[in-house]
């Protein structure tokens, strides 16, 4: 579904990715792990069109999308929950969710999706009229994911969904992610600091180091890998 080949991305003079290749097949959860500044978020940004790649290719369903502006990719079934949630704090929860389905015409369809997302996250239903900025951090994270789900993406990019959440909530959110993948068949590319949790949820994983793929394998294999255990799982 998604194929990234030899991707190079630079911010001005700072080269963030030096030729990253990875792949996510239909229905998979693929996780990217790596240290701070390894280029995980940059990879997601390049896939969703927020930054233009300097070199290499990003293909979605076999079609090149490198350099296509972000708003067009949404219509091709891609949704990106960016780092730091980026919900619209001045808009109500309902409006935030409706914006998630901005590309969808037809009130009935939007209403149906809204209902479904609210069923996934009942907490949001209780706060539907509240403005986004008044939600707690965890609720905002749910809103960010729910908003992305409103687009019914075929490929969902998640950037650190666990950031700043209580452990209990993190587990809840990851259960949701697995369920979305199972029930809706959504392909998920997951960036996560909590490597253990990410690898337990995902089917396959990539380890990124300073802008390059250092390891790629099935998730259980990575969990067992000594190198990963030493560097990312805190095992001694």
């Amino acid at each position, binding site marked *: 579904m998604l194929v990234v080949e030899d991707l190079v991305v630079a911010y001005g003079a700072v080269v963030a990715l030096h030729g990253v290749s990875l792949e996510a097949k239909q229905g998979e959860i693929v996780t990217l792990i790596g240290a701070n500044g390894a280029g995980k978020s940059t990879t997601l940004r390049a896939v969703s069109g927020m930054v233009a790649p300097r070199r290499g290719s990003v293909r979605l369903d076999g079609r090149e999308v490198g350099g296509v502006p972000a708003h067009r990719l949404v219509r091709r079934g891609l949704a990106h929950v960016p780092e730091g949630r980026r919900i619209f704090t001045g808009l109500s929860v309902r409006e935030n969710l409706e914006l998630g389905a901005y590309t969808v015409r037809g009130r009935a369809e939007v209403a149906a999706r809204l209902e479904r997302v609210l069923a996934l996250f009942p907490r949001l239903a209780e706060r539907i009229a509240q403005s986004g900025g008044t939600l707690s951090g965890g609720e905002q994270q749910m809103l960010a994911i729910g908003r992305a789900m409103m*687009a019914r993406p075929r490929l969902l990019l998640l950037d650190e969904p666990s950031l700043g959440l209580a452990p209990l909530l993190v587990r809840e959110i990851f259960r949701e992610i697995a369920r979305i993948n199972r029930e809706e068949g959504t392909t998920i590319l997951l960036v996560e600091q909590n490597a253990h949790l990410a690898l337990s949820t995902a089917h396959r994983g990539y380890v990124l180091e300073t802008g390059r793929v250092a390891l790629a394998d099935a998730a259980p294999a990575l969990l067992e890998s000594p190198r990963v255990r030493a560097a990312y799982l805190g095992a001694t």
Partner: protein
Amino acid sequence: MSPRLRLLLQALPALALGYVVVRMLVGDVGGGTTLLDYLSIGVTQGAIYAFVALGYTMVYGIIRLINFAHGEFFMAGAFAGYFVLRDAGIERWALPQPWPVLLAYLAALLAAALVAGTLALVAEAACYRPIRKAGRVAALLTAVGLSLLLQNLARQWPAIGPTQRPWPAPRMWAAADEVPSPADAHYYELKTFTSPTGERVEREKPVVFKGATMTPAVRQRLAAEGGRNVFRKGELSRTVVDRSIVLMLAAAAVGLWFLVQRTRTGKAMRAVSEDMAAARLMGVNVDRVIAATFFLGAFLAGLGGVAYCAKYGQVDPLTGFMPGLKAFIAAVLGGIGSIPGAVVGGLFLGVSENLFAAEVSTEWKDVLAFVLLVVVLLLKPTGLMGRPYREKV
């Protein structure tokens, strides 16, 4: 302050405003020197400021740009309206009065709004979009440059030129046979000829004076020409102009509120204003939303341009400058970025200026706007209706 007291303090000006507007709608105010007259003058002027302030505020709200050229969109609209009124010939349509004049004005307003809006679209695509990433100072100077450019283009352009022109007074056209005898007003016919420099010039030539009778020869000649070819000069009554302006503002404000709060485009506008990149991730075509915002703001400015010139009776290339500046102040007073703020700020400024002129001094009237601006900025930088100052770290 207790909530009840605060509510009262907020309700009082609103009630006063409501009272003034009602009196304006039902009676003839604005001609005398009572407080009510000055208030109504202030409300009318404030409504024009508000029209223009809406555009400033929308553009600022979405891309944080003080669009100095907004006053020139206003001017361009005013000229579009001027030419439609003068040259389109709608007033000659064979309809009972006052339909021809009314339709001519509607056409002028529409043309003004569309010309101003189109100009804003072009300006946005050609200047503001390319400069958006280069930083705020560069964008601001570009806006200033655009303002200068449009002003001076208008001054140099032969069809417009630097001189002040009187706003066309409505003409009530009639066929020669319809002129009563003795005539109930001065009647004129329009002669066009080519000047030595090759320009087409129009001259009003009297046909018959009030109380006199038309000679049969003239009547015959005119009847032979056919159609409505003589006119008497009408006049826009002050009350009609004032009422139309206030009602137009009310309609525009409600319409805009509905658009921004209730429609998909409005939601996209608010999203872009808050976080452009995140809006893009929702599938919002940010460039298009920004262009739409410019169009809408300039559309309103065009309406304001015709209203302003019809009210004050003249138009020239610098027409947009002072109202533009004042409207900008109004937008800041009300809280730049806020749509209700633009309306409140406009009315507040219009009313305070006219009360000040009436009670204190006319010469110092212009300084009041700037002093108010500084005072409000210092006490509440985000304006009367703005959100509390939020510092992004």
